[in-house]
Each structure stands twice: as C-alpha cells, then as structure tokens.
C-alpha cells in the first residue's frame, strides 16, 4: 500500500478496493460530504467524516486540532450545508504529554466556536508506544441542507466561471517547512480555517452556485480534475490570475514542488455561471478568509475531462492530478 498522497493513487485505491464492497447513494455522489434525505423526505442533511494525521502536530498557522475541526466543517460546507454537530474520536499514543493533548483540545474548542459547531460525542483509544504518531483525530460532521442550495461536483457547466477564495499551497508548504528535522526557514503559515462566512455570503446566489469544493490533499489541480471528471467538462485556468504568495512560490520552485498539487486547508473553489461571477467574487472578498479571492478560470465543453493552465507564455499546460510519485519527465 502506498496510496496516501490524496492524488491519483488514492482515487484508484478507493475505486478499486473500497467501492467493491460499499455501495450507497451517498458514496455514489463522489462529493466530499454525502447529501442525504432524512425519512420525512422533506429535509436533507449532509454527513462527512475525516481522519487527521499530521507531522508535526503544531505548525505555523495551526495544529492537528484546528485541522480536525476545519477539515470536516469545510467538507460540510461544500455540500451547501450549515455545519451543526461534530463527533471527535481520538487515537492517542502512549506517552503523549497531557499538556500537548490539552493544547490540541483547546485549539479544537476555539475552532469549533469559530465554525459554530458543537462537538457532541466522542471516543478515545490509546495505542502502545510506537503504534501511533502521537495523536490521530477522526471527526464526523453533520449539517443541514437548505432545499435551494445544493451544489455538487457534477454540476459544473460549460461557460461557468471558476473562483478561488485565496492563495494556494500555504498549508502544504507550512507543514513541510515546520518539519523539525528539515528546519527550513520560511515565512509561511497554514491557511487552516473554517469557511462558514464565505459560504453564508453565497446564500443570495444559492440556486446558482454549481460547485463548492475545498482543494485539500492533492491541491487545486487534483480537486479540479475530480470536478472535471464528475461534470465531464474541461476547466481552463489562467496562470497569472491564480493567487499564490511569493514565499510559497519561491519555496516550491526551489524544492521542485508544484503549488498546484500542494495541499490547502482553508480554501474553497466556487463555480458559478459567468453572469454572476463579479457579484459572487465581491461577496467572497467581503468574507473572512476570502479577501484574496480571484476568478481563476472557466469551464468549457470538452469530449473528455481535462484541466488546462494557460501559462504566462500563452501556452496551455495540462494539469494532472497529483501523481503517486514526483518523477521528472524531461528526457
């Protein structure tokens, strides 16, 4: 098994192994949160779950606790849901200092308050020393879905505009640089944040929001490829319009990482009809964590799903999902 990067190999693992055993409407949707009808057949809820593993546990801009809350909240938001309740399950490694655990719980509490969710149930297991990486946290989230606001990765339509809520690559690079043994000096903070306000400010456009998706593991490129696949369309991005901090760009360049496949934890991709893109952009920019939002591309009809980047040279580069391995292709 070597399929954990969140890119093409993870997708293949899910497709080939997991979906062989599990079938349900919720899974079929292939979105980050399942959109489910409750038995009264009137109201719908969103359910999602995520396990969080990160080294180091603390990094500039966040920690595993904040990630565990924001990741799940943002997944609920991508279904257009109002996040409501969270469960939290902990797998602790023997020897984890209580003070560290408390620091993480404190962070979870604050993040949950910010995201206006309640942690309503939980679980704790302790594993032997050496069998865990300090702490693993699983969170499951439940939220309400409004009848008029049900975005999905399959709804991107040719002509739509693609909006991104801020800079890319911050989380992945922040965590990388924070890895103690590397000791890379870099002025990069994780973007881990709950994006409730952005989604709330989209309410006036509810029916017109085709897709909401958070580009987490695998980055912008992988997520857009998923959307292109689900909607059977092409997506074209404009390199110069994609927000990216100078520092992230520089570090990526020097280490040979691709910011387009680097993880984010507080970003949202919003796909809406072209006519309303400017209004939607303004609404996002007014929101907390949405100040640097930009229109980064458009959806176009294509016989097979593809994501293209119009480079600053005017050429079109094919953006692939994050591959299993980073290998040079220049021969």
């Amino acid at each position: 098994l070597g399929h954990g990067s969140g890119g093409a190999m993870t997708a293949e693992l899910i497709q080939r192994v997991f979906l062989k055993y599990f079938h349900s409407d919720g899974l079929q949707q292939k979105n980050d949160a399942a959109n489910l009808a409750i038995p009264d057949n009137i109201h719908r809820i969103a359910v999602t779950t995520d396990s969080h593993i990160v080294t180091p546990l603390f990094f500039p801009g966040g920690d595993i606790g904040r990630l565990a809350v924001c990741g799940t909240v943002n997944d609920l938001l991508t279904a257009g849901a109002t996040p409501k309740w969270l469960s939290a399950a902990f797998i602790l490694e023997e020897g984890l200092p209580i003070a560290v655990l408390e620091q993480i719980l404190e962070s979870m509490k604050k993040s949950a308050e910010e995201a206006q969710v309640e942690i309503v149930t939980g679980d704790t297991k302790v594993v032997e020393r050496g069998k865990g990486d300090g702490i693993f946290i699983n969170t499951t989230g439940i939220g309400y879905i409004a009848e008029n606001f049900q975005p999905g990765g399959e709804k991107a339509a040719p002509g739509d505009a693609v909006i991104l809520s801020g800079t890319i690559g911050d989380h992945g690079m922040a965590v990388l640089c924070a890895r103690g043994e590397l000791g890379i000096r870099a002025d990069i903070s994780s973007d881990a944040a709950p994006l409730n306000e952005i989604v709330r400010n989209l309410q006036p456009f509810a029916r017109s929001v085709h897709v909401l998706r958070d580009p987490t593991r695998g980055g912008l490129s992988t997520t857009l490829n998923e959307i292109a696949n689900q909607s059977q369309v092409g997506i074209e991005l404009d390199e110069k319009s994609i927000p990216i901090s100078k520092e992230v760009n520089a570090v990526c360049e020097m280490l040979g990482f691709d910011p387009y496949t680097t993880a984010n934890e507080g970003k949202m991709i919003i796909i809406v009809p072209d006519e309303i893109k400017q209004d939607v952009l303004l609404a996002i920019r007014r929101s907390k964590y949405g100040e640097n939002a930009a229109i980064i591309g458009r959806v176009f009809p294509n016989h097979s799903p593809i994501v293209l980047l119009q480079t600053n040279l005017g050429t079109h580069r094919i953006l692939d999902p994050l591959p299993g391995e980073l290998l040079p292709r220049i021969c």
Partner: protein
Amino acid sequence: MLGRHYQITGIVQGVGFRPFVYQTAIKYHLKGDVCNSANGVIINVFGPQRSIDSFHEILQTAPPPRARIDHLSFFEVPFQNEKEFRILPSQNIETDFLPVSPDICICEACQNEILDFNNRRFHYPFTNCTNCGPRFSIIERIPYDRPNTSMKRFPMCSSCTVEYENPLDRRFHAQPVACRDCGPQLTYFRNGSDGIFGDHALIAATESIKDGEIMAIKGIGGFHLACDAMNETALKRLRGIKHRSNKPFALMAKDIPTIQKYCMVNPDERALLQSAAAPIVLLKMKVGCIIPESVAPTQNELGFMIPYTPLHILLFEMLSPEIEVLVMTSANYSEEPIVFGDSEKDRTILAQLSDGILTHNRQIVTRIDDSVTRIDQDHQRIMIRRARGYAPDPILVQRQMNQILAAGPELKNTFCLTRGNYAFISHHIGDMENAETFQAYQEEIAHYKTIFRVTPEVIACDLHPNYLSTTYAEKLSEETGLPLIRIQHHYAHIASVLAENHRFNAESAIGLAFDGTGYGTDGFIWGGEALLCNNAGFERVYHLDNFPLPGGDTAIRKPYRQALALLYANGFSWEDSLFPVSSIPDREKELLKTQLDHHLNCVDTSSMGRLFDAISSLLGICQEASYEGQAAIELENVADPDCTEYYPFEILEDKILLKSVIGNILDDLRQGIPKSVISAKFHHGVIQLCLEICVRIREAVNLNIPTVLSGGVWQNQILLGGVRDLLEKNSFNVLLPRQLPYNDGCVSFGQAVIANEIKDRMR
C-alpha cells in the same frame, strides 16, 4: 507470347510510378494495364518473352527517383490479345493498405518553369508534377487520388486536364496539379485590412520582409514565421513574440552558394540539403560568419535549408539581392504545435505572432514540421527531428507484425503503428505536456489509423507512470479491453536501433543507452545504462552510480543544482570558488542542502545526460537551461579538439563510479586548466569508458556481439565519433540508427517491436 502479373508494394503512388510503367511498356511494345490499388501497383503485361524480360529489368533497376519498391511479386498468366497498354482507374479494396509518399521538394523542371516568363506557370507558386509537390500533408485517405486530397476543391482547367491525362506528360496523374486558372491562390493579410491576392500578395509580403517585419508564411506543413536573418531588431522581436530566449532559429538561404558564405558545406551536406526531403541541415559555421549571434546564441553550427516550394523560390526571387537568408521558424508559441489552419482562431494567433500573413487556400490536412538532420563524421545522415519529407515513410521490418499502437514517450513524441512488414512511425509530434500537442497527438493517431488502415490489437507504452502518452494508452486499453504492454524506456531505445538494422532477434547485443531521463524497473531514473539485450528481454549490466536529482524537473532546468547534487553525493564540499556554488542564490543553497540531507523530493538518477549537465555547470558553462540539452550542447561546443587526454572512470561491480572523475576535474579547475581542455578530457573519459564496458561484456559473454548506441546524449558528435572509432578499432560491430533519431523520436518504434515479441509469445 506470354503474360505476366505484377504486384508491387512500397512507395509507388504519388511518385510517377504508373507513367513510368506506361512508358516502359510502350517502349517494349507490350500491351496490358496498370492500376493503383490500396495495396500497391498492379500490372498486367502481355507480349514476347524478351520484351517482358526487358520490362522487368527496367522495373527493378530504374524506377522513378522518388519511388521505393519494398516488395515485387509476379507470376505468369495466360497470354491475352490486348490492343493497347492502358492505365486503369484505382481499385480500392477496403482492407488493403499501402505507404503514402512524404512531401517532396520542388523539382528542377518545375523550378525552371516558374522562372520562365514564357511558361504558362511563370511565377505560379503552386506548381508541381509527379516528381514533386505536397503529398502526405494533403492526403485525407488512400488511395492517393485527387478526390482523397485537399486538392478536391480545385477542378482542373482544360489545359491542366490535358497534362493530367497524358501518360507521356510529366504531370500525368500528378494529383496536386494546378495552374493560375484553376489552382490555389495566395492571399496576403495585414492586421484588420482586407486581403490582397495573387502576385500582389507576394509583392506585399516581400516588401514587408524588406521593411524588417515578421511575416507568417503558409508552407507545406504549417506556417513559418519569416524575417530577415540579418536584421537584429526583427530577431529580437521574434524572440520576444515566440517566448524563445536562446534556442536556435532555423534559416533558409536562397541557394547553396549563399549558405557557403556562412557555413562549410561538404558534398554529403550539399546532397542532403538538395535531397527530395529538403530538411534543415546543421552546418559548421565558418570563421567570421556574419549571421547575427542572436540567431543561434553560443552555437558553432547553424541550421540551414534551401527553398523547397515554388513559393519559397519566388520569395527569394523578389527578396534578393537585398535579402538572401531568412529566419524560418515554425509559427507557434514556445513549444506548441505549429499553426497550420486558416480558422478564425489560427488567424488570431498568427496576427499576434506576426506583422502580416501570406497564406493560400490549399488546405493542409496534416501539420508537419521541418525535419532536422546533420551529417556525421562518417558521412552518414543523422536524423534529429524526423518530420516533413521523411514521415510517413515506413520502416520495413523483416517479419509479419501484429497490429500494434505504440504510444511513444513524453517529449519529442512520435507514435508508431505496425501492420504487415511495416512500422509507420509518425512524424515528430512534440512535447506532450502541452495541451495543444496532446490534442494533436490524439488526432494524428486517428489519422494514421485511417490512412494506413491499422486496427491495433495491442497497445504499448512507456513504463513511466506519469507520461501523458502512458495515461492515454492506459485509458485506451481500459476502454477497448486491448492488452497494454509497458516497456522500459532504454530497452525501447536499443530495440529500435536493433530493429532498424534488422538485428532484433535472439542474438544478444550490447546497448549503450545514454539519455536524459527514463523510468527504470527499480523506480529510479535511468539514463546511463549498458544493457545486454535481445528480443526476449534485457539485463542492466552497468550503469552510472546514482546521484540525486533534487526537485526533479527543476534540477533539469537548473544545471547548477545537478552539479551541487553530484558533488554532494560523491562527498565533495561546496567550495565558494566553484561555479555552481557562486551561481546559486544563498537561500536556495541552504534549502538545497536541507533537501539533499533529507532526500526530500529527490529522485535518484543514473542519467548520462544529467552528468553532462552537471559537468557543464561545474565548468561555469551553463547554469540555467532555456531549452532542452542546452548545457550539454554548450559543453560539447567548448571542447578543445586538440586535446587527447582523458579522465578515467572506475567501475565497481555494476556501478560506474563518478568520484574520481569529479575529483580530477576539481583538481584541474584549481590548477587553472582551461575549460576547453577539461571538457575534452571529460568527453574522452566517457569514450574510454564505453570501450572498457564493451570489452568487459565481450569477455563475460565470450562472443563478439554487436554494440548499439541510442539515446539523446549520442547527438554529441565528439562522443559519437569517438566511441564509434574506438569500438571499431577494437573490432566491435557498432550498430547505429539511420532512419530514426538517437533521441526519443525512436522510442515508439522500439516499443512496437518489443510489444510484438511479447504478443507473439502470449499465444
């Protein structure tokens, strides 16, 4: 009296073969008929035995210059008392297939006509005959008849019809035949203004070039961007517009004497320049060559071609004597495919790239770039980019092939389709990362499948999981259920050369695959490999000791990173006095150190190409590469031809160690030895290494097996010439590619022949 039936396959259509048969039959008073089929030319002759024998003799010994007979079969048939010899309409049997002639440069007779004031084709830019003109680039399907080409929209006038129908005329059944009255016409556009037509268009375009402007000119396979090669301002603008900082531009000169003002042209080079393919030929610059440096920065060579269409000839007619050399570079941004159409979108791109457009209404069906070649020290042609004039000539394979689609590599892509005795290797497609190229790739595969009537039973691709060609092949295999065979890159390189030399069989060969990067069976990046291989598989006998490639493709674009990684991996410190150390920004140096310490995003490689890059950086020659291979090319260019010393490599088990070579280079640098000498010593070190490896393998297998060279590194002339001479001196039989390039342009053919073996064994 007797009769004989012939079937002839090869390149026998679009090359004047039927008129030749007709004329020969008439000469010997034979009766019967000849016709084109989708499977070759079919002939029936009736007459006295002696006449038929003479006919046969001529058929085999003196076919038309552009024809290539791959297979001639015949049998005796009962005599029939025919009244005449006739040319019958083409037969089309759906399952038959046949090669298609490549595009052919203008012939001498046509050249004379367009310059002859009294000829009806005087100054007509679309003049051609059975011996010349567009072929592959205008064919939609076979057999090669006018309605199956983009000439179908030009009904012939009565004068052209007479020529077309007269078996004794040079234009008998020349499909693109045309004249001023009935054929394609020129149009000249300038931003926003209406078109100017015909001769006026030509005049306007030449005036604009004389004014120093950049002109988009529609040729055989696409648009060129042309400008005065002596005009520095225009050159600078062109580099800006194309986003091409250093990569050399191709040149077209009025004629060979003009080229000789700037470059040396030996008889082989002259013959190649004047050949039917009319490729770009790389030629050594003369001392004091006054072509501006910015045409080909830091090069010792220039890529020249001569006019190969009537339009080119007419352009130079009007441009000279003021202008006798034009830059002729493909109309595209950076590495995108050449623009070849006349759609609104193409027009817009061309308007951005140029000051004016000289186009015409003969549609290009298949876009195809100019081919690039050179003559090596052994007077042999080397293919560097195989395209116009060569593709789609198939390679004749000595066995029946399964129908295979080989998807090819990522860069310099070609794909390959096989059927019968033929391997159809596509023209140069380009670098796949580009969306437009990838699109073109898929369209060309469909087109080749149609015109050569291949329905693949097997798909072959590279072992590299991230190549777009691999992804394409995987998807195709999933959709069609056809078996997918993944083939190691360097095995494909070597197999390609073996198969070209008809030596891909059970006999083993030594393969020296010296290349950029290719994915190895151990998950590392290979490229400095000595393989022992045959048609059943390969063994990796020796390879360069691995060193890290920090940041993958980033390292390849910045040779100083490779130099520093090489020093690091071999235990040398980064002294401030070293060129790569002074070239790397402080912060990046610190990060690189961390990256190497933790092997973060570092892939290990045994690539010879990367070693050349690293040495180039170490000598302070090239620190950032703006086009592929730049660092290695510049390293070659500085080498002192008079130096014969060399740095010895050490071999430990299967590893070729780099430490002593680097140590020696550092010592020489410290002692102030000139980089020209160090470069030469390094080159000679690699040459000696090759001998050492081959001798060891020969002793181990106790047989004098052939040695095969393949991989982009062999485009280095010092290395190629040196290794070939040294090996031959030591009685090795050296096999080289002749029709396909050393670089990745040959990989698809290698994939195809290997997949064919595997497929046969699956039965």
